[in-house]
């Protein structure tokens, strides 16, 4: 039971399907089609831990992150946050819960209200979630701005007066305002310049040490994920294909997709000569995902059973979870 108490977030069998409109709007369609964005995803997150979620575009990592916060309503599945099933909460209860769970979006140019001053943006988050009110707010806002590397005078400026990196700092300060125990960081560095990316990641790491929040770090950048995560989940076409500790994923990847993905990252060392696994073809459409293992159309080790039977997502030892017929 002690182990269970450490678990902050437990996601079980999360499914999200988006209906696709075909033909003219409102036209009757005999077979409704769906984009299977997230199919049966399960994972858990411990307190003050960072789980990295990697995968290529369209694999469902962002949808997973948003479903966990119920910013998108999941089709089915269970999201236990601090022992409460989020899907069973009504609007008012969910709003209360949101003070404990915050999000940092990818694009700091569209995630901040251009008509509000930075101080108002952050102060409003505090007031809405009841962490501060009245004259106290200003002091707390300034404190928070300082902790993300900005200064007091920045509180009276508008978002458009800041650079991308500074805006992302503001977005981080806003996310921290209600003092959350869980933050979803959805590609927080992708819109930034390379030299600014490391500053933002360093800031997130420092804040995580000081504030002790858990983080779901969603990114397609494997080197960033390797750097920030304690555990890593690899997604492919709506499913987590491998989930293990960071060291296990990067040193001993087991799933053929993870291995191909890792070998695809160019290494900045001309003396390293590695065998590259170059995948044939492209990711199939999530409207009609392949039968059996979803990776079988591109897998270099495909067997006949992979085409019909979906592999079980099982533990192969040391909490290393893989969904592959070669291993389970």
């Amino acid at each position, binding site marked *: 039971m002690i182990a269970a108490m450490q678990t902050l977030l437990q996601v079980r069998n999360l499914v999200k399907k988006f209906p696709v409109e075909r033909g003219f709007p409102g036209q009757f369609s005999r077979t409704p089609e769906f984009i299977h964005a997230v199919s049966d995803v399960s994972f858990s997150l411990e307190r003050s831990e960072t789980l990295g979620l990697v995968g290529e575009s369209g694999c469902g990592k962002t949808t997973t992150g948003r479903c966990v916060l119920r910013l998108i309503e999941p089709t089915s599945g269970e999201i236990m946050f601090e022992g409460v099933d989020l899907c069973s909460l009504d609007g008012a209860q969910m709003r209360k819960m949101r003070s404990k769970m915050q999000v940092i979006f990818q694009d700091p140019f569209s995630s901040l209200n251009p008509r509000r001053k930075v101080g108002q943006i952050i102060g409003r988050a505090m007031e809405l979630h009841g962490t501060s009110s009245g004259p106290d707010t200003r002091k707390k806002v300034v404190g928070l701005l300082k902790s993300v590397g900005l200064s007091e005078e920045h509180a009276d400026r508008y978002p458009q007066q800041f650079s991308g990196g500074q805006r992302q700092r503001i977005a981080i300060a806003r996310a921290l305002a209600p003092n959350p125990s869980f933050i979803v960081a959805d590609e927080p560095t992708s819109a930034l*310049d*390379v030299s600014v990316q490391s500053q933002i990641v360093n800031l997130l790491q420092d804040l995580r040490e000081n504030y002790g929040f858990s983080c779901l770090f969603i990114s397609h950048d494997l080197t960033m994920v390797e750097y920030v995560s304690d555990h890593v989940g690899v997604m492919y076409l709506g499913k987590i294909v491998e989930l293990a500790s960071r060291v296990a994923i990067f040193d001993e990847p087991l799933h053929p997709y993870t291995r191909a993905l890792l070998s695809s*990252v*160019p290494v*900045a060392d001309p003396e390293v000569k590695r065998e590259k696994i170059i995948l044939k073809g492209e990711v199939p459409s999530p409207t009609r995902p392949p039968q059996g293992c979803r990776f079988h159309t591109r897998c270099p080790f495909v067997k006949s059973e992979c085409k019909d039977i979906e592999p079980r997502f099982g533990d192969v030892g040391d909490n290393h979870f893989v969904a592959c017929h070669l291993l389970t």
Partner: protein
Amino acid sequence: MLLQVDDLKTYFFTRRGVLKAVDGVSFGIRRKETLGLVGESGCGKSTVALSIMRLLDPPGRIVGGRVCLRGENLLDKTEDEMTHIRGKEIAMIMQDPMTALDPVFAIGDQATESLISHGKLAKNETIPRAVELLEEVGIPSPADRVRDYPHHLSGGMRQRIVIAVALSCGPSLLIADEPTTNLDVTIQAQILDYMKSLKAKFETSILFVTHHLGIIAETCDRVAVMYCGDLVECSDTLSLFRDTRHPYTQALLRCLPRREYRKLPTIEGSIPDLINPSGGCKFHPRCPKAMTRCAREKPPLTEIEPNIFVACHLYSQ
């Protein structure tokens, strides 16, 4: 040398003042060689590429220098002459495959357009030649694809078409401006692999513009590093990574994330304003090894060892 760029200066005449995007850059590309041009965004690497092609839009203008292709200065050519050179002698792959293709023309027509306009193909032979071209860049079932439109294809497929278009006339120089930046890593690996095999087949020289040091290490024979419109270091790939000379290149390489770091290293300070840059070496305000001389004099790009060029006072007597 196939292409020799000497003291190229490209400025942008903005309302705020003159922005020196490329401020006296010199390098050469040999036959069958891949030269990587690397730097952070805003360092002028794309402007160099566009200057070579003479595709700059106002307020950008080439104000000085020479760009010689097989000894002929491209900057002296008329616009008509350039039209004959673009696509035939020098081809370019742009960063964004979503906008590089015209949405209202079929793939096959776009793949052969350059061949027809350079008089290498009759109009009634387009379809079979287009099928061949698509096959060469690894598009599955090319015969069905030639009549498709760009929106039917994924980003990776479109970038292959763009490469097919670029290579169709057998150019001697291919300029690739961040050709894989918008693609996923597994697709990026596919495209880089194709570019390598196509380069061997067509014997093309490549100017590879990218900010990604990993891609440089894996694909380029030589590397030129740019900082704020200046070329700061140019050498073969192995020496650049093993015996890094310029403090900026050293800082850039140190910033690559590694697991064992507790904190990611960053370069102190920020990029200077290119309209009013401080005097001397542009990197000196951020350089850990800056000397008094660095603020006064701009270090020239000097050959300190055979084929190793550095612009830094640390290496001058």
